[in-house]
């Protein structure tokens, strides 16, 4: 896309960063050419964010580093210098202002300053509009941000980041919360930027889009540079190996479970405006994949299965018994567990301890004769599950927020498995989980299925459901449109179907 002889926008060599004796970055080199889309790949905690923070002046590199920005060597850089030079970051957690309007959000950085000035709303609106036009995006400038879907907020964040005549843009996991079509829209914007000569450094967990968008990839592992690779000729499997240092299997694991007894049977389930006429069966030991775009009604269906919402028509049975949970407690009692797609704010109570997060769903079973929680029983329960799912923890009393994404997801699983469910619904269980740790999660899923659990695996990552489910259901606009045998199709075919 970009000629290899374009000048360097950024050239770093021998960058190290030590935190209290721990080397977060160890003599890393990193270079981005003008107008290039460059991917920075690596697992959580590998040092990607540290690198971004050094370039943007949040951190200072250890002595010995060589930093060159837009052809000029520099000793160091402060956040305001970085902004003046045209370096912009779109943070993973957005950093926008939910109660302010689109225009105010986009033009906000121009309002920052210690001296008060009178606002010029007209100018701010005009600037914001010009930026949206440049990106080819249409948004109502006066809408409050919290009323927008997350994808449009992402666009607002990009528009805002580009306001200061940005020449080098870092995007930290910009697609983590986007649907495929929204992601496509975003990738188009990235292309546009690249054509306008802006360099984009793209950080993502999703290997498919890394390969789609970038011209070269820098891979970092454990704070060390693994290498810089041209995207052409790189496969997802190869990239995964480079990032984890281990060989990942992408073998289809589907088995035929059609002979097993049905656990969940759903007939003609409808909730107006969310999903219609859903019929499906999940059998003992079966992993049923449910894929489709976000907004297809997958999570809404799950919410009805667990009693968060009530269906308008249709009926459900669990192990032959009619099922109509009035709330999530009734669903748990009936034997259904739900691993939420939003682990940070719904799946776990982040500040509280690992032990409490594990015990929360089965308090009734920990009571002694006096109706008080018996700490010995609680300890035993927590110990058991930590061992069972090999969760790597310091101490059970540590806050669950101290764990990595993969280990947090194991705690979520522990919490639900402790309720001894018959059916477990996994809603996008690998969001924010490292490539390497994903395999571990799916090994557990398969083991649970082998032990007789019925599993509904919801995900919009087609390759994930295809390799890990026994059957795949495709949901579109609230309806089930197709059932797919993973052995009889390929990831590409299914992706074409789902993202069409």
């Amino acid at each position, binding site marked *: 896309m970009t000629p290899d002889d374009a000048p360097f926008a950024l050239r770093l060599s021998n960058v190290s960063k030590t935190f209290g004796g721990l080397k977060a970055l160890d003599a890393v080199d990193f270079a981005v050419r003008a107008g290039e889309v460059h991917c920075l790949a690596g697992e959580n905690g590998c040092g990607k964010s540290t690198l971004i923070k050094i370039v943007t002046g949040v951190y200072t590199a250890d002595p010995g580093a060589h930093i060159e920005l837009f052809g000029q060597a520099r000793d160091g850089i402060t*956040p305001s210098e970085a902004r003046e030079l045209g370096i912009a970051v779109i943070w993973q957690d*957005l950093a926008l202002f939910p109660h302010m309007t689109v225009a105010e959000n986009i033009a906000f950085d121009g309002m920052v300053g210690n001296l008060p*000035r*009178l606002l010029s709303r007209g100018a701010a609106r005009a600037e914001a509009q010009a930026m949206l036009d440049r990106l080819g995006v249409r948004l109502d400038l006066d809408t409050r941000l919290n009323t927008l879907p997350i994808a449009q907020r992402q666009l607002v964040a990009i528009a805002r980041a580009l306001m200061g005549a940005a020449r080098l843009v870092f995007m930290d996991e910009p697609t983590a919360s986007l649907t495929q079509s929204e992601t496509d829209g975003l990738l188009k914007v990235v292309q546009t930027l690249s054509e306008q000569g802006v360099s984009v450094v793209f950080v993502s967990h999703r290997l498919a889009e890394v390969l789609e968008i970038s011209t070269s990839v820098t891979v970092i592992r454990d704070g060390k540079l693994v290498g810089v690779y041209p995207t052409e000729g790189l496969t997802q499997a190869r990239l995964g190996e480079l990032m984890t240092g281990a060989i990942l299997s992408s073998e289809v694991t589907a088995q035929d479970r059609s002979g097993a007894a049905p656990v969940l049977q759903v007939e003609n389930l409808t909730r107006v405006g969310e999903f219609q006429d859903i019929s499906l069966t999940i059998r003992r030991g079966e992993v049923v994949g449910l894929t489709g775009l976000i907004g297809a009604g997958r999570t809404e269906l799950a919410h009805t299965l667990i009693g968060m919402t009530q269906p308008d028509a249709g009926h459900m049975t669990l192990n032959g018994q009619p099922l109509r949970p009035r709330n999530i407690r009734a669903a748990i009692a009936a034997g259904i567990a739900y691993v939420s797609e939003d682990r940070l704010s719904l799946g776990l109570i982040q500040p509280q301890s690992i032990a409490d997060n594990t015990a929360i769903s089965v308090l009734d079973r920990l009571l002694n004769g006096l109706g008080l929680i018996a700490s010995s029983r609680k300890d035993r329960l927590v110990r058991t599950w930590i061992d069972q799912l090999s969760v790597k923890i310091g101490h059970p009393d540590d806050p669950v927020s101290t764990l990595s994404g993969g280990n947090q997801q194991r705690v979520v699983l522990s919490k639900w498995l402790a309720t001894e469910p018959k059916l477990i619904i996994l809603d996008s269980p690998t969001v924010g989980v490292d490539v390497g740790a994903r395999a571990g999660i799916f090994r557990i899923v398969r083991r649970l299925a082998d032990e007789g659990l019925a599993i509904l695996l919801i995900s919009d990552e087609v390759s994930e459901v295809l390799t890990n489910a026994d059957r795949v259901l495709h949901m579109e606009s609230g309806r089930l449109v197709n059932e797919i045998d993973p052995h009889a199709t390929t990831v590409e075919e299914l992706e074409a179907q789902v993202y069409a």
Partner: protein
Amino acid sequence: MRRFAKDCPVETRLFAVLVLITLGLGLGTDTFFTLANITSLLNNNAVNLIWAVGLLVVLIAGGIDISFAVAASVVQYLAALIFGAIGGGNWATGLIVAGGLGLCLGLINAALIHGFRVVSIVITIATFNVFFGLLMFFTRGRNIYALPGWWTDRIFIFEYQSANGVWSELNLSVAIMLACVAATAILIGWTTWGRQLYAMGDNPEGARRAGVNIALMHGLAYGWLGMMAGIAGLCQVNIAKEVVPNALYGRELEVLAAVVLGGARLGGGRGTIIGCILGVLFVAVTQNGLNLLGISPFAFQMIIGAAILVAISTSNLDLGLKRRRAAP
């Protein structure tokens, strides 16, 4: 107008309720819609409104302040000492002295909140105790009557005698109140400082990363409220004609209730001057109406409390339903 109704549902609903109450009182009594009644309503609520707009700034910035009413008492006491020492003064020096003292007390809050990274409710409850305790200790709870004449003399900015001889008049405090409301409206609505305050209340981490000077914003918010508290304290003495150390004790919670009722969000990022005025007026008009309807003054508070409870229950119920429908 429609955009306002969409963006500020709480304000809009409160406005509708207030219109209904006003109409009801207009029809139910023949005294409500008289100039004399409306001017006395304004005179009686000038102090509360000055506090309310000050508190609004702190709420928008994501904080809360419990200490402002006793801070106003401290300002009154110190100002009385200062006026005694300089031998009089006038309204101009009075406003500067009271505003300045209030500002200093507000900056103490800001410095503690920012310096020790403690949430505002903890610090302002502490300073509430410190301010009040020291004030009562040094004054021994005694009132001050010996005040300069300009401070206690009535100054009317508007006078009108109706045909039947009833005087309608507006105090100087109403003019000061209008100035304070206008200044606050400009600060939060029309300056870059205002946008930064909203941003800090809305997303503190985002504001910090965008380069907003958090220390300055804390100083601005609590300092502004302190200044408003001091000015309101000055006006209150003009109405009461004496300095009573514990006269304002407990008023902070009523002002807080009125401002939050007017749609300011506890937690920051949302709140409007209009809502703030409506919140104060809701309480004021209800009380005024009860008075005109001849209901026992002992029942006022009870009815106002019940009215606020009903108002919260209905307004949030509505919002709650909307949220559920909008959620995926």
